[in-house]
């Protein structure tokens, strides 16, 4: 158990904030959002649930731009909601890259 928690904390500390122009601390908030709130449907490990598997291997065919568009505008006719009311395009871009790069 503690290893897992430590792994999560470590992951939060080493989020690939590099390429983003996000304000300080925002990347950690977005990672929590991905794990906990996207995780409500996609699972906390992102392996899927009612929502699809969104681990890197499952997203291999996606581009960061395409993924960011799905995050912002959702997929009509499915349970994937548009997140544009809650997050910025820069946030969505960070999440898209995070999902594609995440090593877990």
């Amino acid at each position, binding site marked *: *158990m503690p290893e897992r928690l430590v792994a999560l904390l470590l992951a939060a500390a080493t989020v690939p904030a590099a390429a983003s122009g996000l304000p300080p601390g925002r990347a950690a908030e977005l990672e*929590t959002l991905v794990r906990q*709130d996207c995780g409500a449907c996609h*699972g906390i*490990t992102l392996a899927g649930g*009612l929502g699809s598997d969104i681990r890197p291997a499952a997203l291999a065919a996606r581009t960061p731009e395409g993924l960011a568009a799905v995050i912002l505008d959702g997929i009509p006719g499915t*349970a994937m909601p548009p997140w544009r009311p*809650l997050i910025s395009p820069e946030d969505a871009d960070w999440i898209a890259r995070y999902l594609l790069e995440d090593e877990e």
Partner: protein
Amino acid sequence: MMLRTLIVALMLALPAAAAELRGTGDLGVAVERTTGSLLVLDRSEHAAIGRVEGLGDLSHASVVFSPDERHAFVFGRDGGLTKVDILTQDIVGRVMQAGNSIGGAISDDGTLVAVSNYEPGGVRVFDAATLAPVADIPTGSRTLGLVDVPGRRFVFSLWDAGETWVADFSGGPEPAITKITGIGANPYDALVTANGRTYIAGLFGEDGLAEIDLWQEPLRARRILDGYAKDDPALPVYKMPHLEGWALAGERFALPAIGRHEVLWMDARSFEEVGRTAVHGQPVFAVARPDGRQVWVNFAHPDNDTVQVIDTLSGEIVHELKPGPAVLHMEFAPRGNEVWISVRDANRIDVYDTASFEKIAEIPAESPSGIFFTARAHRTGL
């Protein structure tokens, strides 16, 4: 956080009280979702009295209890089914029964535990004593909304296929399956009333719900609250509502609307809408205090720091709380005098007096989600 962890660790290092005689009627458990652990709770002491670790991925985990209120069956998201002795605080059985799971139920006679699975889609049933497999019911669909009903039966719904199935184990380990097709698109959760008669499935893909009267033959589904949202475009839903914490408040059900910031009131006999209460956000749980006098509501992201209390008689919001970031679940004491609220991102369970709305206690917990008291052992559908 360090200090709290240390204190909990020291508490847990004390010898377990298994040598002392004690009952379990005032105990319960809270799921700690990110650490895969279960916190054992004492309602009388307003305290955590132990922690059981090693239960796997417990995001969205739920729990049912054995008839003697000693064992908790924990349904993990990763397909793990774990049987925990809450007196000795040990894991006494564990099987990885599927790849991706969403809750379970225990039969009315306490001998069968059923789990509904997304992957592979279906329901698997186990011997409650040994966790040995009893039956496998593949559905070819992500399966959810699983409840126990009288007569050694389980009822569950198929997200992808839009069906509800009844598995009847009254004749032994080979279930008799009844399929109710065409209930509507994408059932996302379901409830059964306390008498085991009425099964209601929420439909994500429809503007209404499906109702099945389990006392009638042949079984069939009918659409209820049809078109409740037809006048307005749906709002985004950032977390699916739950129906299993159903609220039968007096003569009326309180149900979370989907895609609307409303609680819907439905007559318990006619199943017609009799009113709405505008609330703070997308409701997730709308749960009645056990006496039915109040309905407590929590909300989806980004409004999940808030809880509202609706007076059943007037349908008006009589109180609002801001317990903290990410309120995930509310569990009432069996007689309703207290409500225990998990505040995930504050790493805390808060206990409130439901008459005065005063906070009585705070209990440290790691990312707590579901809270389950042992009194559920004696309730159909919980």
